[in-house]
């Protein structure tokens, strides 16, 4: 019995296992030549799908590289990335909101992009100047595929209803107020039924105040090195006065009306709103909504805009072959063809003027006004986005709910925001 078993073992099992070992060795050899890298971004369906398409293209061009995409829900994304850092695990290439970059660069989570592959001078020549938000001490740490800016979006049907030409949007702040007043509808009991202009600072409008209104009233939100709050002067007071007048004096909108600005606009209950280019996809899904897009109104002859972006960086523990592969992938993600595809699929604007300002893009009735806005756009150098955003929300509430003067409110939140900046820069 034992002999039989032994012979069976030699005859059948041994050759089989030998074959198995060879196969394993072969697989190991082949895959040893392949480099695997991981890419992280937050989950947004079209973004995830587009990256999948791009990875297929990239892997065809580079058969020796495998890219794994991992996504997380947007709400958890920043915390996931942050928690992965002390745990020592994480991606090789990571997609980060530009406002989070100072934190991660400060913590040595990202490595400076190697200058032979990404020359800072070339970056400054090729990309919009606002990508300098990813530059620290002369070195770039991340690059975007696409950028976003703000524009005025208006509902053509509501314009017609109010007797306004649906094809001519307001060009200046004065016109904006004038149009908004005509478009606002209250019922007999005095309740707001339709907003002329949305007025929720929690959406995109705090950017409108910070980077657009303050500059249009002759000021600047921050010092050149971003370390000092500088809006606590007449320009800041004027900007806040203008904004609070919208809801308190002209009463053309309300905070929290129909939950938020985009909901009100989608429901056809807001005639005008100021929002980002990423909204086009959402609005285009609504068949009954006839809307137009124009540049953000100017004032005193000054045009300004706010731009933001998600940038891709390489983590500092990526080295050797993985680093080479990551650099190739990052180059691919910031190439002209990727930007074109990104605009088409997602509606975010190309990060290079050479691509963005192509005839067909700048003349596009929907993307065109956003792209024009990029020429004079500013990207706020956030060090603690949540705390800094809260500043303008609180300034408005201090005036409206606490009866503070505009000056008191702006001075108070400027002092609070200055503390946030001081804390960040004192650690450096």
């Amino acid at each position, binding site marked *: 019995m034992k002999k039989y078993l032994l012979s069976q073992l030699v005859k059948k099992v041994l050759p089989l296992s030998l074959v198995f070992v060879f196969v394993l060795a072969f697989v190991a050899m082949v895959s040893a030549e392949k480099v695997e890298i991981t890419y992280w971004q937050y989950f947004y369906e079209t973004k995830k799908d587009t990256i999948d398409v791009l990875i297929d293209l990239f892997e065809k061009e580079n058969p020796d590289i495998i890219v794994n995409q991992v996504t997380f829900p947007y709400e958890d994304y920043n915390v996931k990335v*942050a928690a992965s850092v*002390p745990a020592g695990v994480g991606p090789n290439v990571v997609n980060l909101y530009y406002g989070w970059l100072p*934190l991660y660069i400060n913590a040595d989570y990202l490595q400076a992009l190697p200058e032979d592959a990404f020359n800072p001078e070339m970056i400054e020549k090729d990309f919009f100047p606002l990508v300098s938000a990813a530059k620290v001490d002369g070195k770039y740490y991340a690059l975007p595929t696409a950028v976003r800016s703000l524009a005025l979006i208006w509902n053509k049907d509501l314009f017609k209803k109010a007797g306004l030409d649906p094809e001519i949007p307001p060009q200046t702040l004065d016109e904006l107020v004038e149009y908004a007043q005509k478009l606002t509808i209250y019922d007999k009991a005095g309740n707001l039924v339709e907003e002329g202009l949305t007025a929720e600072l929690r959406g995109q409008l705090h950017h409108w105040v910070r980077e657009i209104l303050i500059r249009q009233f002759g000021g600047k939100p921050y010092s050149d090195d971003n370390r000092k709050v500088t809006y606590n002067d007449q320009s800041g007071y004027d900007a806040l006065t203008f904004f609070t007048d919208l809801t308190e004096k002209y009463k053309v909108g309300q905070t929290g009306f129909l939950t938020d600005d985009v909901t009100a606009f989608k429901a056809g209950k807001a005639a005008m709103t100021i929002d980002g280019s990423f909204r086009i996809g959402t609005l285009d899904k609504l068949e009954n909504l006839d809307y137009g897009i124009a540049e953000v109104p100017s004032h005193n002859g000054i045009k300004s805009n706010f731009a933001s972006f998600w940038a891709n960086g390489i983590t500092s523990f990526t080295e050797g072959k993985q680093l080479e592969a990551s650099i190739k992938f990052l180059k691919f993600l910031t190439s002209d063809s990727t930007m074109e595809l990104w605009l088409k699929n997602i509606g975010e604007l190309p990060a290079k003027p050479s691509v963005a300002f192509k005839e067909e893009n700048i003349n596009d009735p929907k993307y065109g006004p956003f792209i024009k806005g990029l020429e004079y756009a500013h990207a706020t150098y956030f060090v603690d986005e949540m705390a800094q955003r809260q500043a303008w929300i609180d300034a408005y509430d201090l005036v409206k709910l606490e009866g503070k003067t505009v000056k008191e409110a702006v001075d108070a939140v400027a002092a609070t925001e200055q503390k946030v900046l001081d804390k960040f820069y004192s650690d450096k």
Partner: protein
Amino acid sequence: MEIRFNKLSIEQKKAIWAYIFLFLPLIFYLVIRIYPAFSSFFISFTDWDIVSSEKRFIGLENYQRMINDPVFLKTLGNTFKYVIFGLPINLILSFIIAYNLNKLQRGLAFYRTLYFIPYMTSLVAVSWVWRWLYQPLPLGFFNNLLGFFGILQQPFLQSTSQALPSILAPTIWVEIGFQVIIFLAGLKAIPEFLYDAADIDGADNWQKLFKITIPLLRPTIIFLIVTGSIKYLRIFTQVYSMTRQGEGGPLNSTKPLVLYIYDNAFRSFDMGYASAMTIVLFVVILCITLVQLRVLEIK
């Protein structure tokens, strides 16, 4: 080993089996709860920002910062407001409901279920439904109701004075479900003959209530006060869900300490400061609970 195990008494064997079964939860508890608790105590003396590799020791700086932080003091005050206003109202309403339900001859199970349903519902869902009820016109149910009676529209969640009570209302509504059930159990446990004896002695309903029912409910009341205070001190979900973007506004008027801790830890990544505040909250809860047990236990 086998032989030795057999030599043990039945009691000892039972104990060993108990420990074997307790081992896994115990390990889990140590790793998931006890270790992080001690670890946050340590982190509270650092300025760790979650992403840095080094945790720099800064002594008591985080604790000093708290004293001068108006938002911390405001949120601590709000937390006490939730307890001081929420808990008594909650207890009184729950007792009144349970006391009357207890008198019902029929349909008790039905009413009990009815009151318990909010407690079973996800708190996030409850909060969002109430948030919609509070909306301004034309959507908000409460404002429509007020309008129907010719009363002026109220700002509710958008006002610094009305927002906190507006958040307390659904919290109380949910908690009533739990407290009614516990009160009912306590009431059922009071022997009927005591009331019969009181009837013979000619006691009226108020006397029965204050001389029999409430004194005998003492353990129930103590239990509800202690667990209720802890729940109100840790209030978070309602505020996070009902205020815009979870900011505990307007102007921090509804922000409880736990939400401020969350903001610092997971939005600003200021782990050291957040940990220090967690320690303070822990001490506060501990002190309040100890004081309550002391005061309520001893006559």
